[in-house]
């Protein structure tokens, strides 16, 4: 399955000024690919994710899944939102179950239960399944949101800064669980992730799309990360390719930052 983004344009009118946020984006994501979108605030990376997710309508251009244009939002492109967005009155188990029941009505009750168990277990929350979101930490809420997204068996998984608000240890653990679920447990082929973290992008991605603010093009660079998996977060730092990419990203983003400032 391939995800194609063709000549995508999107502008926002804010008071009297027009912000041309997405300026002719072209991107093809191959089956089994993990792609990160990185760039400064306002570069349009979240807007791009939202267009792929069907939550925002582009002005021009299209998003194709296996050659067919995607319609509105739907569980084939499940999303993990920045601030967890679990439903407050439901337990963790019910949160995942309601999503599966709504998104995959064709599943029987036992199939549904099996999915809930597999993915809540996969993020280490099965023994906490009876708790409600307000009873657990932000890290656990985000893990539940990841489980919910995987449990609806999406073809594409969209992550909007999923680790942004987490402390370093929690982030490392959830990154590991995410890769584990994506590679071995699920049928999900493509992951598209918006991130601020350079190291995170290099550690997780097959390809990094570097985005920028006007007057530059929307996509200023695409960097392929050929470091073989499984990647170890400690030893990967010794890889020359890792350092090379890290420096390149840092250079790209800091030049951009200076020019914007």
């Amino acid at each position, binding site marked *: 399955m391939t995800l194609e983004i063709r000549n995508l344009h999107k502008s926002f009118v804010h008071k009297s000024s027009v912000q041309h946020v997405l300026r002719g984006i072209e991107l093809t994501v191959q089956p089994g690919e993990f792609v990160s979108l*990185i760039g*400064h*605030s306002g570069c349009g990376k979240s807007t791009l994710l939202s267009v792929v*997710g*069907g*939550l925002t309508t582009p002005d021009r251009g299209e998003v194709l899944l296996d050659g067919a244009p995607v319609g*509105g*939002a*739907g*569980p084939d*492109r*499940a*999303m993990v*939102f920045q*601030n967890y*967005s679990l*439903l*407050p*009155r*439901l337990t963790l188990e019910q949160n995942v179950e*309601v*999503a599966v*029941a*709504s*998104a995959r009505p064709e599943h029987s009750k036992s199939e549904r239960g099996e999915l809930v168990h597999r993915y809540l277990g996969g993020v*280490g929350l099965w*023994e*906490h399944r009876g*708790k*409600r*979101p*307000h*009873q*657990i*930490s*932000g*890290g*656990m809420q985000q893990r539940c949101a990841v489980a*919910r997204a995987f449990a*609806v068996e999406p073809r594409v998984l969209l992550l909007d800064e999923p680790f*942004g*608000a*987490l*402390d*370093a*240890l*929690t*982030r490392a*653990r959830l990154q590991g669980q995410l890769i584990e679920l994506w590679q071995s447990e699920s049928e999900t082929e493509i992951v598209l992730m918006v991130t*601020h*973290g*350079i*190291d*995170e992008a290099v550690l997780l991605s097959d390809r990094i799309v570097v985005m920028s603010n006007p007057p530059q093009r929307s996509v200023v660079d695409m960097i392929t990360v050929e470091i073989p998996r499984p990647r170890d977060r400690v030893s990967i730092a010794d890889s020359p390719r890792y350092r090379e990419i*890290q420096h390149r990203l*840092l250079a790209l*983003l800091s030049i951009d*930052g200076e020019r914007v400032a």
Partner: protein
Amino acid sequence: MSLMLPDAIDQATTADIDVDSAGEPAHRASAPIAIPRGRSRLAQSASTLGWAVAGAAVFVALWHLGARQVANMPTPVDTWSSLRELLTDGFRNGGPGDQGVLLLLKSSLLRVLKGFVMAAILGIPLGMLIGSSPRAWKAVNPLIQFLRPVSPLAWYPVLLIIFLDADRASTWVICLTSLWPIVLNTAAGASSIPTDHRNVARVFHLTRRAYVRHVVVPHSLGSIVTGLRLSMGTAWMVIVAVEMMSGRDGIGNFVWNEYNAGAMPKVVASIVLIGTTGLLLDLVFLKLAKLASQQEAHS
């Protein structure tokens, strides 16, 4: 540690301790027990009560002085003895037109409750509909804004020719009284659902039913209770006037009859009873509002 872009750093350093193994939520323990310095809680309640009594005493004294200036105006003492008389005889039931004041209060309360429940049954779904659909909002809001300032009593004759029955017309007046605050507050709550939760509903294709149940209701619960509380307050005010017009057994009718009979101490004693009942009703809804806001604080 990761290298991060500058604008992400403050986000990323937010400590968010994960407590898997202990199983205890991190947020819970953070609220220390507040111990007010210098004064205990008992002293504080005593002070609150003391000032309330002082205020009431000043009011009663002014009333006592003022009552002398107006012919037939009962003094606090007259009112007190009349009130005791009414209450000791509160549950007398000598048939229609000869009932104790507590039974009359009960009829009025039941009438209010009936109209109020009708208004809630109509108003909450209507509020949710117009709160979650901008089109429905545009269609209904001007109409509501036009109807809202009309005194519910003005509807009484209209309702009377529809139902040809004073009791049913009274109940419907209460229903109309209660309807607008419930509709408008519910709509306000339903329209303030966070975009993220709407997006969750879109991405996971939540059914209409699941959306209302798991997203709309939890988010609008606080506003619904506020609407219910406001409308109950108004309904209790309006019932007195409705009963004066309808002439049906009830506390409003009692007030009017006693005025006509020249028994002013009973009139003022009834006012005390009406006020007390209203206060109790409001306390019930205040408690409900607190429960609802606790639910919301957890969301």
